């Protein structure tokens, strides 16, 4: 009886790496979108109210695992500019002009959209790329 040799090749490691890359990509996209949203809103508040507000007080922070992979992130305003909270929430006589809460919603929506619509495509593409089926252009 003739022997048939079947070569099995697992792409699971590539798929795992592709999934991690997809999550990293989604986090980065969400952070950029959130930061831009907050900055845009601060800019509009400055133009509307005349207060000397600087849009570039909104920064990004990345949280990384021990192996250097990105596992999360946030946008924040450094405590030097603590008084921006009075614009976010309003005071007795100043109406609220929120920028962090809407930015948070944008980030959440973007992350969900990236994971929902692009996740599978991203992982498939990365897996094929790693096994040499497609080449990066």
């Amino acid at each position, binding site marked *: 009886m003739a022997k048939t040799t079947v070569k099995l090749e697992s792409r699971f490691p590539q798929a795992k790496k592709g999934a991690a890359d997809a999550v990293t990509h989604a986090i980065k996209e969400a952070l950029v979108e959130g930061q831009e949203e907050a900055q845009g809103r601060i800019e509009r508040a400055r133009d509307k109210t005349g207060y000397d507000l600087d849009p570039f007080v909104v920064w990004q922070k990345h949280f990384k695992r021990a192996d250097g992979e990105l596992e999360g992130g946030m946008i924040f305003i450094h405590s030097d500019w603590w008084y921006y*909270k*009075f614009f976010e*929430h*309003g*005071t*007795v*006589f*100043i*109406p*609220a002009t*929120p920028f962090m*809460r*809407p930015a948070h*919603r944008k980030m959440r929506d973007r992350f969900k959209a990236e994971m929902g619509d692009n996740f599978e495509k991203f992982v498939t593409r990365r897996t094929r790329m790693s096994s040499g089926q497609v080449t990066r252009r």
Partner: protein
Amino acid sequence: MSVNEEAAAQDYLLAYLGADTTLTSLLESGVWLRSVPQTARFPAVKIDRQDASDLMVVGLSRVWADLTFLVRGIVHWTGSGQPDWTGVRAIGDRIDALLHDHEAATAELQVHSFREETFTDETVEGGDLFLHCGGTYRVRARAV
């Protein structure tokens, strides 16, 4: 659906909170939207819009407007030493009793609301100290 849910929800909150005799008995002026006039007397309640988004389903049918409002009691502290939070806490508690786990229907809206985040703060404005106590409430409003 021609009703702007956000504007209608604001009107609803003003009317609903303003009609509660327990809450108004704790206030000197009333319920204000977005800013309090310089001439207003305190304690007062202030409502600030925080964020809004629409929930839509297939066919662009709008299920509800998903709104967040910061609703707080404000007390003008004129005493000396450590500020006394008793009065503003009572207002914050009453606001929560009215708005958390709340459902209602009016001629133009169906609403439900719940607290998403508590809120306390102190502000110094014009040299005066104000104490704030309340919360961020998610209000989902559907035009009827």
